[in-house]
Structures are given as C-alpha cells and as structure tokens.
C-alpha cells in the first residue's frame, strides 16, 4: 500500500477511535439542538403566576388607566407611601408603583417598589402607560387631539429587490443571507483552528516522542506531513458530517416529541431568530418567505464553495501549523509563531461583520481574493451573489496559496523535526527554507 495512504489511515483511525472524538461527536449536536430548542422552551414557560401590583397615584391622572393583563393585576390603593411600603414588605402586593405629585406639573419619575427584583415586564408596561398618558395630556394642553397623531402613524414595509445582469429581479433577504454567510464563515473558522492545531499537536507529539527519526527513515518527511494533514482533514470532515446528521436527527426527534406542546409559530419564530409572538398569518407569510429565500439563493454553488473553502482554507493553514509544530519542542513554545499565522484568520473573522454591510465593496473584494482570508470572507459574500470571475480567481488563488504554504512548510518541516533544544527564530526558519 502507498505509504502516504498508510500514514493517513493511521492518523484517521487513531483519532476517530479516541474517546474525546466520540464524546465531541455527540455533545456537539446536543449543544446545537439545545441552542435551537431552549429559547423556545423558555418562551413558552415564561412568567407563570400573576403579579399583584398596587398603584399609589398621588396625581390622580391615572385612575382607570392601568388595565390588568393576563399576568399582571393592577389595583389602586390609598394611604401614605410608608404604609404601602410596609404592605409590600408584608407580602400583600408583589410590587408598589408610586407616582408622586409632579414638580412644575410634569411628573417625570415614578417608583416601582418591590421586595424581590422588579419584573421587567411590569416595569415596561407601567412606563408605557404613564408615558402615553402624559404625552396625551401635553398634546391636549397644546391643543392637539391625540387621535389625530395616532391616525397619522404609518407603517412602511420596504422590500429590497436586487437587479442582476440579466435584468431579472430577485427579492433579497439580507438577514437570511447574513445569517447563512456568517454560519458558514464561523464553521470554516473553527474548523481551521480546531483541526489545524490538531495537526500541530500531532507533529509536536511525534517530535517529543522521538518517533520522528524512525518515521523519516522509512518515509519522506513530505509524505509524513501530507499523510497527517489529509488524515486529520478527514477526521474533521467526519466529525462535521456526523454533527450535521445528528443535529437534524435530534431536531427531528425533538419537534416530533413536542409537537403538541409547542406552537408551530414559536418554532418558526425561534428559527428565524425573531420574537415569539407572531400571529398565524405572519407565520404563513414567513413560511412562504422562507420558500422565496431558498429559491433566491444558489444553494448548489454555496455548498460546493463551502466544501472547497472549508478544505482549501484548512489545507492552507494546516501546512503552516505543521511547520510551527516541527519548529518547536513543546506546545508552550508555539506562541511566537501562532500569532502571525492566526492573525489573518482572526482578521477575516472580525472583518466579516463589515463585509455583510457592503458585500461588494473593495475591502470585501480584496479579502475574498487573498488566500489567507478568502475562506472566511468569500463564504460571507457568497449568499449575496459573487460574479463568477471573482469566484474563480479566488479559488485559483487559494489553490496556489496552499501549494505555496505546503511547499514552504515542507521545507521548514523536514529540518525542524530533527532539531531539538534550540530556540528557533524567524531568521532560522528562513535559513531552513533556503536549504537545498
């Protein structure tokens, strides 16, 4: 059997049989599912039990204005502030809303007194009622009928439409595209870091175990490095695919099991990361919107690009991580080399936020071409649509990028793996690269 293949096989098998791999494989989707499901559960079980709120209104403006809701029972009380405070302490009310006599006829402050932490729901409800009442009073004092103001309010809904080269129009759903771009960028980012550093640790392990000399007397250092890099890539791919499969499985099981207790609107709402209280018609609208969105995004292209940038970015960085691993004696010494290598990656991740605001701007364009940032930035840009020539250029550059880093890394690697007990400087690395 081919030796690189043998190495790949060992790297792969020893890793996927590790307990930590199996634990991570099951823990990952559980966390993901929890992330999707917990907000829904929390939303449905929120604020049980009624709150009893007493109102001590010294102005007398708000009599009858506080309407009790499903969860909050308002009652108007008389008496001094001190007496009523005592009643709060005795547990007669959950909270006391105290509206003092206004200074200069303008009540600006009210106090919400409660034994426990005041509920934000009560607080915002009270604030809205007081605010509306005072605004109305001011409007009336100025001779304006509040009804007129209310009627003049308008809701405008803007649908953004993207005109492409062929002149056909597509509605653009920026939020969804941002989310899609972000998620794939995050996955690429973490994959590179997680499995890139595994490559580095693997190299350091071989070095500190001193097995490296036996290995390189059997195979070429390049074969060893490539076997390791590709083996670990397959580990990452396996883990990722298992996560996706298990997440869908868990999510399916969950929605099936809780179908009765959960309103479909709530599930949809959490999926869309929107508020929970959507009405049925809005839900229907959203469902049709999702269909719309799916039809506007070029999924096959995104999937292909995701697979490419996922692997291409990993290969580019993994070679560098392997070079770092070969140059040091233990993990603690990696710091000085880790920074410059991870900097472009982190930069790409940070900048991706700005890129979503202007996915066709010069910053986005350049960073999606430079191989060190393109795996992240191109994934952010893709859902917004990227001209094919830019995509092809970026792919070409990434391929030449990882050929270059692999070539450089191999030169450092073959010297570094045999060096012990020496503090390596950049000058030293440069010398290794130039060895024939």
């Amino acid at each position, binding site marked *: *059997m081919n*030796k690189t293949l*043998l*190495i790949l096989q*060992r790297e792969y098998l*020893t890793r996927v049989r590790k307990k930590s791999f199996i634990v991570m494989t099951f823990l990952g989707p559980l966390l993901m599912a929890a992330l999707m499901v917990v907000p829904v559960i929390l939303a449905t079980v929120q604020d049980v039990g009624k709150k009893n709120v007493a109102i001590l209104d010294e102005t007398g403006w708000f009599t009858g204005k506080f309407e009790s809701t499903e969860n909050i029972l308002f009652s108007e009380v008389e008496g001094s502030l001190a007496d009523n405070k005592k009643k709060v302490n005795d547990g007669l009310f959950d909270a006391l809303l105290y509206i003092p006599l206004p200074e200069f006829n303008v009540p600006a402050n009210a106090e919400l007194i409660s034994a426990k932490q005041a509920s934000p729901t009560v607080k915002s409800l009270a604030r809205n009622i007081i605010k509306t009442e005072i605004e109305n009073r001011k409007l009336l004092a100025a001779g304006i009928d509040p009804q007129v103001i209310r009627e003049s309010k308008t809701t405008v809904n803007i649908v953004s439409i993207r005109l492409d080269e062929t002149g056909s129009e597509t509605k653009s759903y920026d939020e969804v595209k941002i989310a899609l771009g972000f998620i794939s960028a995050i996955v690429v980012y973490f994959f590179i870091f997680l499995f890139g550093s595994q490559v580095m640790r693997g190299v350091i*392990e*071989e070095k500190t*175990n*001193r*097995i*490296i*000399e*036996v*290995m*390189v*007397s*059997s*195979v*070429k250092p390049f074969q060893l490095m490539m076997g390791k890099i590709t083996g670990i890539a397959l580990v990452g791919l396996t883990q990722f695919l298992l996560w996706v499969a298990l997440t869908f499985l868990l999510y399916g099981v969950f929605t099936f099991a809780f179908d009765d207790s959960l309103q479909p609107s709530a599930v949809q709402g959490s999926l869309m990361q929107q508020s929970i209280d959507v009405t049925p018609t809005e839900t229907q609208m959203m469902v049709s919107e999702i269909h719309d969105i799916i039809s506007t995004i070029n999924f096959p292209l995104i999937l292909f690009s995701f697979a490419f940038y996922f692997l291409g970015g990993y290969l580019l960085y993994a070679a560098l991580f392997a070079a770092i691993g070969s140059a040091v004696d233990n993990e603690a010494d990696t710091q000085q080399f880790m920074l410059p290598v991870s900097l472009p990656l982190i930069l790409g991740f940070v900048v991706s936020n700005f890129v979503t605001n202007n996915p066709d701007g010069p910053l986005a364009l350049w960073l999606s071409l430079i191989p060190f940032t393109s795996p992240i930035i191109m994934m952010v840009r893709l859902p917004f649509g990227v001209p094919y020539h830019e995509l092809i250029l970026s792919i070409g550059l990434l391929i030449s990028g990882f050929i270059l880093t692999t070539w450089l890394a191999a030169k450092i690697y073959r010297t570094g793996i*045999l060096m012990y007990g020496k503090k390596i400087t950049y000058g030293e690395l440069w*010398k290794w690269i130039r060895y024939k």
Partner: protein
Amino acid sequence: MNNIALEAEKVVKRYANHLALNEVSISVPKQSIFGLLGPNGAGKTSLIRIINQITAPDKGIVRLNGEPLNQNHSELIGYLPEERGLYKKMKVGEQALYLAQLKGVDKTEAQHRLKQWFERFEIAGWWNRKVEELSKGMQQKIQFIITVIHEPQLLIFDEPFSGFDPVNVNLLKAEILRLRNQGATILFSTHNMESVEELCDHIALINSGEKILDGTVEEIKRGYRSHTFELQLANLHDSAQAILPDGFRLLDEKTNSFGETLLRIQSQQVVEPNDVLAALLPKASIIGFKEVLPSMNDIFIKLVQQQKNSGTRSTTPHE
C-alpha cells in the same frame, strides 16, 4: 565481486556554523559488524542520518551495494536511533504492524513475523497493551523488533545498548550476532568500548567530524602496541630491576598469595615477544608471559586526547 555492503566516500556535512563531517569515508564489508566510534558530538549521528537518507550530504556520496542511495534503499535498511521513541498512545501490536508496513512488509507477512519475534522475546502478552504502559526496557525491546522486522540487509544501531539492563544487553548482543550470521551487515555507533571488542570486526573512529582511525579491531590493537608485557615469575630472589632486559622499565610489581611475582614491564623500542622471552629465560623461572595489547578504550581516549591537544590529524595507526 564487490564485497562491500556500504560505502561512504568523502562525505561532507556542514551545519550553520560548524563542520559536522569533513570528508569522512568508511566502507563496511558485507556480513560484518562495523563499529562507529567517537566521543559525543563527533559526527556519528550525522553520518548515520545521511546513510538513512534523513538528511543529505553537502558533498560526497554514499553507496549501498554499489548503488548511490535512493528512496528504494530505505526498505533495505533498519535503523534504531539513539533517541528511542514510539507512539505512546498506540497499542504495541498495531504500532509494530504499522511501522513494518511503512518499511514495505505486507500486512499478513508482518503479522506472521511479529508473532515469531514476540514469542522469541517472550513478550507475546504485550500485543494489545499501549506503549505508555510499558517500562523503558520493554519499549526498547519492541523498538528493536521494529528495527529488524523487515529483515533488512543493513542494520544501523545508534548506541544500541544504552538503556538496557545487563540481561537484555546480552540478549541484544546475541541477536546482533545471530542477525549477522544470517547475512545482515551491521553498523553501530557506540562509546561502549567493551561491546566494540566483543562484537566488532571493523571500526572507524570519528572525532570532530573527521575520521582518525579505521581498520579491523585486531589490526588497530597491533598498531597501538605499547610493548608492554605481563610476567608471572616463581622464586624471584633478585630484585625485579635486576632481571629487566635492556631498554625495559618496570611499570608494576606485585606478589600474589603463592609467593609468585607479577611484573608489568614496558620496552622503549619495538621489540618482539620472543626476544623478550629469550632475554628473561636465564634470569627467572617463568610461569606466565603475555604481551598486553591496549584496550580499545585506551586507544580511543589516547587518540581523542592527542587530537585535542595537538590539533594535528593522523589517519594512520602509528605513533
């Protein structure tokens, strides 16, 4: 027919600021045991790494069976590095199989051979244990098996006896001799001179990147004769000084429990043992007579010191 298994010709290896090997040439006859000697940092490991194609020489050429080294040769060489190491988390059997396959042995064949070796070393029960669970000596045994599992023509051992207990050192020596008798050529580096005299047919002594001595153990020892003799004499009435042949001086005088005198004498000039004996016969009754050849250890220390002091370099074994 060429009888040389391995030949290094004027090999030069230069590192950043020192010359590790300066035109070093050695030739190792087939089916011999060749000792590569030298103090720490002399360049032994550099040479061994070049032979293993782990690094490339800056100049010079290395030939295996008359052919310049190439990638296919790695399967003909078994290498036990000075710094031993295995994958700690891997199971012993699995690891041995993996490394054997990397040396080009087919999986079933490797399994078969490993089983035999494990039985010979009485370690069959270790197959499924992780390397980290084994003691250092146990790991060394595994490593030795891994080195020879592909039945290489040339075996290279870098300090093979370091880290073994005396029982295992003997086991190892026996294995080395057995492998040689089966046809393997063995090159090993060491500074354990005792094992050199015991095992080696040829040696080369390297110091500061240069070969300063080369030849069979017998030749070298003869070359470094110090014309010292040990005498065992009965009933010596005269003083020891009185019986000394011309040009000799007394190094040591002892009496043993039988009342016999033990002398060590050395001549200033080249002298044949028979002449010494002839000169002594009329003066004393000789029970024992022996020429003392220097130990490899003495030669080693002497040469290394000499080179350090004078800076002059000789490649001929003469004083």
